């Protein structure tokens, strides 16, 4: 047939062209043939728009044959780090938009006379289906978008971190103590005694309205008082430095540093708009603005001798977490790192408590549950803990338990003092129900598994993520091994857990992108992260994975479940993205577990983040679908 001969020549020519470029060079022969068969060639003169957001959902996928096409961002929101991107032969567009069947975010304009092959959206989707190579190419492209978003997030954080803790911080925020001041007629001896007693470097002299009149610093003492043989009974105003340097509370740390450097002083007075003393800023206060390092915090925790020192460390952990986001650490490392420091903090609190409670001879382990148990702590978390122990021979079980509970109570209180609020549901080691021997824990878990009523399922979701944070880890390992063995054979229990996990669906809308609550918000914990966490827990129990972390559970189970590495990575990426968004919404200023944490307004996200969030929810849905199939729910 004559048409066949012609087709062979022309389709062959298209195939040869495509073969010069990635990913078509690696594409399966049948998929490449399909593409070449269906690709038609169009012309776009210089300056013409090929595709714009206004054209609605993308109907064609383009591969540039010749010429140059520029992708330009449109609208106010800049969604990627490039403002425009030039593309040449072999490059293709749009990928994200056509995969998601939505309008393109970029405008694609021919900047030279250009020829482009094009296929329809349906052909594109079919190609994704029949070609694993092409599918991977497109999903990796989406993953690269994810990367761009992270960089963008980091930029935002850098700015915020800069505002919070660098030289642009207003002085008003740097004042640590109420200022100490005396009146001008105060005897010099009394003022110096006060300085010594309070261990302060300077004394401010004010009038009755607290308006600064002068200042006396430690470094003035030697030349003006000691060497000059000044009579300490005389009033302080005779030796103070009059007209001290002052700055308003709104001035920045940078202004203060400049003022100090210019006038060679080590202290500055901060005043309110009425000229009244608000506080004193020392040179040392400015030095401490420099970034807090991980090592410093660890050293601070390890050397802490009381809870107040640990309170400082706790604040530093939050500050450092913010810095690390700004430096571009991903959600996985970041949450692990927060967990690691919080672990160190908790361990130190336990050690300090052990000094006062005699538990010698009692074999115990301090359990962390929930997000702490999974190494997934964000900046907002309350305490979930317990104790597992073994009663020493010839000792009264209840007497030992009372000692453990007294000890646990102190640890719980100290943790609360360090910013981990007491658990409202009383999931704490000081609760006698959670201070159990190995056998008692087995009994407890066994009851939940044998009789999975709603409360038991809820309990399972909290307590199954246990790990030993302090003490004898073998007690935890023993319990884990026993638990995995029991639950694997309890298919009914796993099925109930799965049904429970499926009660909350990812908030993806049919018409709108997202299903939001009445106030227009999405709870990223309840409707996002938890979906991954719950599914991973069940999969781990089923496949006998020992890890208590969601990501490790998914990774380790994937091999046993026959899920491809790419598929698991996509799910994990989705989970991480949601975790990163949660971290972003948890402000440094707010207390742990404050209202409003974890809730975001999807409309306030930029277009790129919206797209990725949607993809992340799709991954959650995929994971849920897996459960549905496995348990025929």
């Amino acid at each position: 047939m004559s048409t066949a001969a012609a087709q062979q020549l022309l389709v062959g020519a298209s195939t040869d062209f495509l073969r010069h470029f990635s990913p078509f060079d690696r594409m399966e022969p049948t998929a490449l043939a399909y593409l070449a068969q269906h690709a038609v060639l169009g012309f776009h003169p210089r300056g013409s728009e090929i595709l714009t957001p206004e054209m609605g959902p993308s109907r064609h996928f383009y591969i540039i044959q010749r010429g140059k096409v520029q992708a330009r961002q449109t609208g106010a929101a800049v969604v990627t780090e490039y403002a425009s991107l030039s593309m040449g032969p072999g490059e293709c567009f749009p990928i994200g938009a056509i995969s998601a069947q939505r309008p393109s975010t970029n405008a694609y304009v021919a900047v030279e006379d250009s020829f482009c092959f094009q296929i329809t959206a349906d052909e594109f989707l079919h190609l994704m289906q029949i070609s694993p190579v092409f599918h991977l190419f497109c999903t990796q492209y989406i993953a690269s978008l994810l990367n761009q978003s992270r960089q963008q997030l980091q930029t935002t954080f850098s700015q915020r971190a800069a505002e919070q803790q660098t030289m642009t911080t207003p002085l008003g925020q740097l004042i640590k103590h109420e200022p100490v001041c005396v009146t001008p007629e105060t005897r010099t001896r009394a003022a110096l005694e006060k300085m010594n007693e309070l261990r302060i470097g300077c004394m401010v002299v004010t009038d009755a309205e607290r308006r600064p009149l002068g200042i006396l610093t430690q470094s003035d003492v030697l030349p003006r008082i000691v060497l000059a043989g000044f009579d300490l009974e005389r009033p302080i105003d005779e030796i103070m430095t009059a007209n001290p340097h002052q700055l308003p509370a709104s001035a920045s740390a940078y202004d203060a540093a400049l003022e100090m450097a210019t006038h060679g002083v080590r202290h500055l007075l901060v005043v309110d708009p009425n000229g009244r003393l608000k506080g004193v800023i020392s040179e040392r206060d400015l030095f401490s603005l420099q970034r807090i390092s991980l090592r410093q915090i660890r050293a601070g925790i390890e050397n802490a001798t009381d809870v107040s020192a640990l309170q400082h460390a706790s604040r530093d952990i939050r500050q450092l977490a913010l810095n690390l986001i700004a430096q571009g650490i991903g959600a996985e490392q970041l949450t692990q790192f927060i967990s690691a420091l919080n672990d160190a903090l908790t361990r130190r609190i336990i050690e300090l408590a052990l000094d006062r409670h005699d538990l010698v001879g009692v074999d115990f382990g301090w359990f962390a549950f929930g997000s702490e148990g999974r190494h997934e702590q964000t900046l907002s978390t309350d305490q979930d803990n317990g104790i597992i122990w073994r009663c020493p021979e010839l000792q009264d079980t209840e007497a030992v338990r009372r000692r453990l509970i007294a000890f646990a109570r102190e640890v719980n209180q100290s943790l609360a003092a360090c910013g981990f609020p007491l658990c409202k549901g009383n999931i704490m080691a000081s609760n006698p129900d959670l201070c159990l021997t190995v056998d008692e824990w087995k009994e407890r878990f066994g009851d939940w598994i044998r009789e999975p009523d709603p409360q038991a399922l809820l309990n399972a979701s909290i307590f199954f993520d246990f790990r030993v944070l302090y003490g004898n880890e073998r007690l935890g390992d023993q319990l884990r091994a026993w638990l995995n063995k029991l639950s694997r054979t309890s298919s009914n229990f796993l099925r109930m857990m799965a049904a429970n996990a499926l009660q909350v669906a990812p908030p993806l809308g049919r018409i709108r992108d997202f299903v939001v609550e009445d106030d227009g918000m999405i709870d990223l914990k309840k409707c996002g992260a938890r979906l991954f966490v719950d599914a991973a827990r069940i999969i781990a129990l089923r496949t006998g994975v020992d890890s208590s972390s969601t990501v490790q559970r998914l990774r380790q189970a994937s091999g046993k479940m026959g899920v491809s590495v790419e598929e698991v990575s996509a799910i994990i990426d989705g989970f991480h993205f949601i975790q990163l968004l949660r971290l972003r919404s948890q402000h440094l200023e707010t207390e742990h577990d404050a209202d409003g944490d974890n809730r975001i307004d999807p409309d306030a996200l930029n277009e790129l983040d919206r797209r990725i969030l949607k993809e992340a929810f799709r991954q959650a849905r995929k994971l849920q679908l897996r459960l549905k199939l496995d348990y025929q729910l």
Partner: protein
Amino acid sequence: MNWISRFIGGRGEGDALEPGIAEALAHWQALPDVDLSRAHFEARYVVVNTEATGLDLDRDRLLAVGAIAIDGGLITPVDSFYATLDTSPSRALSGLLAFARKDPLVVYNAAFNLGMLEPLIEQRLGLGLDANVIDLYFLMPALFPERHGNPVRLAEWMESFGIETFQRHHALGDGWVIAQLFLAAQARALAQGATSARALLELERAYRQYRRKA
């Protein structure tokens, strides 16, 4: 006397059409004329190109014909035609007509291509082609005077637009070039308000008249 007997009578004796060809031709002839005022984005054009032993109309022989459809401003590689004339010239030529339907034809250098095709069609099939033919040889300089103000060889337009092909001097290989040139021509014509085949034909005629006067 119907049209079949008319062209049968026109052929040499003993040169009866192979089975099926007469029906195909009848079908082709019965096609209605196309509306030349249709916009490019809804019209089908057919690029036709020939391959001969040389460039002398009197001495050289036609070897092959190729055709590529441009539908709605897009080249569709699967909508194409190629045939050599060595085994059955009448089958090849009637195949070309069936492929082209009554759509406007696009050629590069009508004098040569149609000079080869038309006599042969008349001789072998006993009918006149009588098609609307757009000749890019004249239309290109009319539309792109900034590139070439006078008619030039195909190779020069290829260079100007950076167009390549899989095989030069092949009916379909050059046809692929002409088809791409025609896409560019359509886009430029559209920008000038020449939105239909009729407008293209008028543009071409005006250019030729202007050249004669000059």
